[in-house]
Structure formats: structure tokens, C-alpha cells
């Protein structure tokens, strides 16, 4: 697990705890749990909601740590400014990642699905959430990886399709190497997420 510490943000949202898992074996169960938690009432509901109070992000669609950080940061900003488009800062991360404004679609595409094999788990909160890594690891059955391994899991084909990059002249210029194409694609993707709050 890694921790992004934002010293200029108010304490309640100053930290983002982020863990990456590969070979996730309980995605379907996890998804059901998230759905169920949103429907449960009473103290049991509160307890379950807190247990899954994370952003679960399909790692295949993330192109870099910066990509993820950008979505997290914009979501925290919206939370602090009272301009969330979705229910929580965690669903807002998925909304920020998505190239369109449909919340259901954002969650479906960027969130956990039954077939998700590699997963990023994010929790935004105050400093000193000491048991958070343990909680992430009990929630997700999979191999924890350092976040720097993120780019090894990127599915560029899916990224290009999702962010509609295939028609972009930036990627079609003759003589571009695969690495150059990915550099250009990564830049478009990060910029798209950064400006999501003001996209037309």
C-alpha cells in the first residue's frame, strides 16, 4: 500500500491510501457485497458500508500513477468544495476517470466487475488510519503489488477504446513507435481526467 499525503488539504481528506492487487479471485463476491451494502438498512448497513468504503478501480484502464492521482485529487477537491457529482468521494474517483458524464456507466466501466482480475483500492481519509492496509487485504483476495507495477497491468487496447483515442491524429501520425503512441495516449488520458469538472 502507498499513501499520498496532501499537506495543503484539510486533514479529513488529506490522505489517499492506495493498494494494487493482481490475480484477484473474489471480484464477483466483492461486487455483490458493494451492491448489498448500499441496500442494507440500520446499523448493519452502516457497518457494511464502512467495510466497503473504498474506491475499487479496474487497474487495466489506468495508464500511470499520475492518471490515478489526478482522479483522486479532483475527487477530493469536489468533496471539499461541496461539488460532488456522485454520492461519495470514492464514487467521484470513478466519475472523474470516466470520459463521459454517466455515473452508472463510470461505475460499470471503471469499477469492479465480475471479471476484474487486477484491482486498485483507494481510501480517502485523515492521517493515521492505521488498520487500513489490513482492511484492504481482508477485502480483496489477490496478490498485492507495489503501485509502480501499475503500468505493467495497463490494457492499452481497452484504454484506447474507452477514451476514444483511436480516431485521434495524435496517435495516428506516421512513424510513431508504440512507446510514443503510449506517451501521447497517456497525456490525453491524464488531461481528460484533470479537466473532467469543466468538460462540456
Amino acid at each position, binding site marked *: 500500500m*502507498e*499513501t*499520498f*499525503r*496532501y*499537506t*495543503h*488539504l*484539510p486533514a479529513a481528506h488529506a490522505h489517499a491510501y492506495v493498494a494494487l492487487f493482481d490475480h484477484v479471485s473474489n471480484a464477483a463476491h466483492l461486487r455483490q457485497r458493494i451492491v448489498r451494502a448500499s441496500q442494507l438498512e440500520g446499523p448493519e448497513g452502516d457497518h457494511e458500508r464502512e467495510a466497503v468504503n473504498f474506491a475499487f478501480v479496474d487497474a487495466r484502464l489506468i495508464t500511470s*500513477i*499520475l492518471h490515478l*492521482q*489526478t482522479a483522486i*485529487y*479532483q475527487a*477530493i*477537491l469536489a468533496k*471539499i*468544495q461541496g*461539488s460532488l457529482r456522485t454520492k461519495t468521494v470514492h464514487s467521484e474517483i470513478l466519475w472523474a476517470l470516466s470520459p463521459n458524464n454517466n455515473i452508472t456507466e463510470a461505475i460499470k466501466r471503471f469499477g469492479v466487475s465480475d471479471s476484474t482480475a487486477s484491482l486498485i483500492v483507494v481510501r480517502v481519509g485523515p492521517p493515521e488510519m492505521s488498520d487500513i492496509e489490513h482492511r484492504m487485504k481482508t477485502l480483496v483476495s489477490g496478490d498485492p503489488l*507495489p*503501485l*509502480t507495477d501499475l503500468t505493467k497491468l495497463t490494457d492499452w487496447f481497452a484504454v484506447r477504446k474507452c477514451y476514444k*483515442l483511436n480516431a*485521434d*491524429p*495524435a*496517435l495516428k*501520425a506516421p512513424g510513431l513507435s508504440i*512507446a510514443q503512441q503510449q*506517451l*501521447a495516449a497517456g*497525456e*490525453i488520458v*491524464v*488531461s*481528460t481526467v*484533470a*479537466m473532467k*469538472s*469543466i468538460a*462540456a
Partner: protein
Amino acid sequence: MESPTSRLLESATPISQGAEAKVFRAYLHPSLQRSSSELQSNASDIREPILLKYRFHKQYRHPTLDTTLTKARVAGEARAIIKCLRHGVNVPGIRMVDATEGVLGLEWIDGKTVRFLLGGGAEDEDEDETLEEGDEGQVVKEDPLKEYGVSQDDIMGMIGSEIAKMHSADIIHGDLTTSNMIVRHPTPPKGVQLVLIDFGLAYTSTLAEDKAVDLYVLERAFSSTHPASEPLFASVLSAYKEKMGKDWLSISKRLDDVRLRGRKRSMVG
């Protein structure tokens, strides 16, 4: 409570101040806290700065109108940039947006403005300050272009071709000057590049007239800021022409018209 973005601005280093905006260099994301196997100093090396462009409040404007206008400007600049990126025009990537606070965060381009590289000096320095006159302690610098491995003429070609790419995407810059272009330092992964910046006045247009005016503004900027480099502007145009192909003809005609109008205006005024 102080807003997150104003606190970020407080931590930032001022770079320049224009009529519309103050520009800062800042760090947005923390460095990754690595496992103990990596030194802390290593980790801080991977932190990349960003540029913050802060459109400050205009006292003379009604506050609500001011906020609305500022938001629109931030959004306009960001939209022009993403359109450029998708069209393969070299521009800084977008890193964060806080339209309510009037702040746009952009990729920091490590390099020098074309203005500086052509000897026009930094924007707030005296025009006639020559590098040979280096004061005590200040090392006399060699030709800064050497470090970049490009000639003046190469830069002109890069400028022409970047503007052509932008105009082919029907984006008009609106403020083409040599201060609004940075030559990116030749370090991997992107290497030496001409990067167009400052899309605060950019807009979309298919009209040859608008593209011609864009070029004319740059031509005037060259002759006033870099009189000695004026002949080099021909290289800008020839690279532009080559890239624009059949569209060049109508733009070229318009450029002649615009020049003529400009001359008449200066004779009258």
C-alpha cells in the same frame, strides 16, 4: 476556511505576472513513499513540478460576473489544450483544474522560451542585456541553443510545423508570440520539442482569415522582439506552408491582405 487551491498557491513559487493571470511553479502530488529499499532522496527525484495559472479577481468586475468569466476562461484554455493534444500538437498536458478558484494546473515544461533562446531575454529583463556582460559571479554563458542541439533555423521550422498542426485542427491561438513557445529540454522521454503554451485567448475557427491573423501577430512579434531574427521568419512560413499543403494558398492570400491593412493602419496612426 482557506480553500485547498489557495493553500497550494501559497506553497508555490511565482514565475510571472500578466494582466490576466499570475503564473506559479508548484508541486501537486506528494512523492511516493517507497519501501525502505529506496532512499528518500531518490523518491523526491520523481516529483514533477506543475505550472499553476491563477486568474485573479478583477476588482472592477461584479463578483458574480467575475467568477463566471474566470470559469469560462479556465474552461476555454483547458478545452483548447485537450483539442491540441488529441491532434498531436505539442502543448503542456493538463494536471488539475479548479475553475471556481480560477486555477489551471499544467504540465511543467522544462526548457526555455523561444524569446529567451533568440536572445530576447527573459520577459522582465532589459532587451539590451547581453550575455557577454555577465556580472561578477554570473558565468558568461555560451550560446544556449548548443545545449538544445538545435539551430535557430531548426526552431523556426518547428514553430511553423507546430502552428500548422494547430491550424489544421482549426484552433486559433490568439496570442502567438515568442514568449508563448517553449523549446523543451532534450531529455527523455519526450526529447527536444517546440511546445506551444498560453491558450488563454484561443478559439476554434475554420476561416483562413483567422489563421492568417494568427500568423501576422507572430510576424509582428518577431520584428519587434527580435529584429535581428526577422529574416528567419521566412523559415517559419515555409515549414508552415509545407505542412498545410493545399490550405496554404487561401491563408497566404489572406496574410497578404492582413499585412496590407496593418501597414495602412500604421501609416494613419
